[in-house]
């Protein structure tokens, strides 16, 4: 049981971080970013390239995250803000287009072979309560928790409050002097860096390929849905719950049903609380 839960918390942390990224972008641009995983992969591939260039792993990760953040800002300035007045649906379609384009670009640049992004703790294990636990799992869970706390804190800073104001009422925020474009760029930059961290953690413990984000996108969006696309804390918790549920389902019922868990969760959310379970509990208090 313990091992299934820890494995679930590990995969759940990947979902959580991507879901937090989705929520951050949603707050500023009011668009569900379907390119989140592939945008995060840009940072992971950059980190891989830096590691391949013999930079220390930590330095490579930081440079990868910075590169991802810059990439997010560029996407916002070059694409998202230009479509800002075209309505909600074109923006949504654009994120799908960005995702497909990025997949092709990543394949072209880094090839189709699976790559190894090895961290100093990769393939190392620790015995805990009679179970063998991977260090990368522990690192992933701890990192996810730290990021969730940091993002929660961020939304109580001046910049964070501005971002929440834009999310709630873009026109009113503009009237009181909030620079929408700056807030949007900040959100895409932070969101893409968080997504990159998710993909670095995920590919470090598995393999790096241009398809690595495919399996994470659905659970991440389900987690964001559970949080009403509003609450980073809710998205983080929901991601963990989905990861643990998937692993317990695989371990005690059937691994064939693992992929159904996310579907069941999203159906339940839409039936019981379409605006998300955490929006009323947390988001109202946050806003």
């Amino acid at each position: 049981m313990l091992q299934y839960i820890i494995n679930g918390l590990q995969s759940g942390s990947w979902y959580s971080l991507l879901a937090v990224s989705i929520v951050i972008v949603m707050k500023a641009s009011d668009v569900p970013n379907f390119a989140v995983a592939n945008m995060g992969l840009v940072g992971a591939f950059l980190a891989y390239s830096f590691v391949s260039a013999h930079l220390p792993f930590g330095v490579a990760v930081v440079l990868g995250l910075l590169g991802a953040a810059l990439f997010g800002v560029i996407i916002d300035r070059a694409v998202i803000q230009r479509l800002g007045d075209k309505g909600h649906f074109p923006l949504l379609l654009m994120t799908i287009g960005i995702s497909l384009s990025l997949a092709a670009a990543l394949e072209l640049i880094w090839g189709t072979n699976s790559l190894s992004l090895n961290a100093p703790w990769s393939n190392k294990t620790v015995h805990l309560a009679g179970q063998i636990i991977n260090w990368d799992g522990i690192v992933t869970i701890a990192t996810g928790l730290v990021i969730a706390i940091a993002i929660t804190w961020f939304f109580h800073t001046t910049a964070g409050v501005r971002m929440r104001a834009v999310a709630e009422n873009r026109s009113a925020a503009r009237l009181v002097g909030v620079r929408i474009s700056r807030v949007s760029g900040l959100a895409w930059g932070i969101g893409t860096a968080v997504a990159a961290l998710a993909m670095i953690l995920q590919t470090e413990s598995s393999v790096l390929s241009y398809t690595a984000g495919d399996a994470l996108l659905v659970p991440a969006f389900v987690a964001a849905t559970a949080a009403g696309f509003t609450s980073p804390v809710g998205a983080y918790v929901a991601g963990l719950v989905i990861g643990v549920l998937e692993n317990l389902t695989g371990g005690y019922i059937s691994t064939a049903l693992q992929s159904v868990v996310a579907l069941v969760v999203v159906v339940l959310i839409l039936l019981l609380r379409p605006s998300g379970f955490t929006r009323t509990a947390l988001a109202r208090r946050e806003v």
Partner: protein
Amino acid sequence: MMTFNGHRRRRAAAAVTALAVGSLLAACGSTTSNASGSGSGSSSSSSSVPGITSNTITIGATEPITGKAATAGQGLEAGIKIATQYINAHGGVNGKKINAIILDDGFIQSREIANIRQLVSQDHVYAIVDPAGSQGIAGTWDFMKQAGTPMWGPISPSDPKLPNVYLLVASRTAQQEVAIDYFAKQGLTRIAAIGEDDDLGLSLKDALAQQVPKHPGMKVVANETLPVSTSDVSAAVLAVKNANPQALIISTNNTSVGLILKEMGNLGLHIPAYADQGAANTGGVGAVGPAGSAANGFLGGLQVDLPTSNTQAVQTWRAQAQQYSGPQGLSAFSLQTYMQEMAFVEVLKRMGSDYSWSNFQKTANGLASNPITLGALPPIACGPLPDGHTCGNQSEIAKFDATTQTWSVIQGFTAPQS
């Protein structure tokens, strides 16, 4: 306070998410099979046979040259090109040069089907040779049956038992049956299985159902299914470990095989593990590379000899492949399609001057009494239907040495125990 528009947009986003979830899950399990007939029947006179001119024979293939299976696809493409160049440089077939049209399908089933229809209906090829994409190809059976165009060496669907379709090498199921027999010979009776939630996993279930009962005392102690393209294999591997098996058979994509081996290493699960040629990328590093030292001792099936083999047939191919400027020329996939095209040409040569499809079928169906022996493939001994179009069901088993990063054959071509 949340605005009305905010509510509505977030509900819309939630609905889009649900739609995307549903679509993705539906896509994961779908197999397209909507081909309708537009062919010209199964018999043709030599003078009106599609793809045949006074100096050329046009053949066609669809391969995943881009996309998730690009490594394999580029190797398969390379083998066809290398074989075509070699054949043409040596005078062609009875003076006719081979013209090979190779289309990229991106490993997308609908494109595989569309490509085969295009090759038959628009490009008017004489035969489809070495097409890849077992799920998509299976979606063309109705079309192929009505078109009558020969399909030679598809990789690697189940045998549809059609008059014009010939499978040359061991299917996944046949390879896995050979592995089960191998484990039985080693005295290993507690077998675990991890299959992908698509036709890869189904092939493994078939192999287990057919072959395990043939070995008294052998039983399947774990049978896990992985979602397609998942990166989280931990629950499946943990479930296998908890079942205390003596051997594991894997039928997933290359990446998942690598992840499973890696997780086995992390959990200290040191038992023999096997995957068929496509899953193991036997001879290459597609699966074992990401697994690192955990891949040591991993067993891979082989439909065709190792590319590093020193047999005369492989040496001849290797000499040609070294001249090839494209990617994956020296891969096992390249060797496979090279050999299969050579076998196809041998059938053409045996047909004499009558290139009609009926004569092709007659000649191919007669191979049981005079098999084509190329050295790097098991003897190709096609016979009449219903079972004769599975022309070879023997496979080898190779072992990977992570220290030297090399594969070596530990069991030669062997058919499943009947």
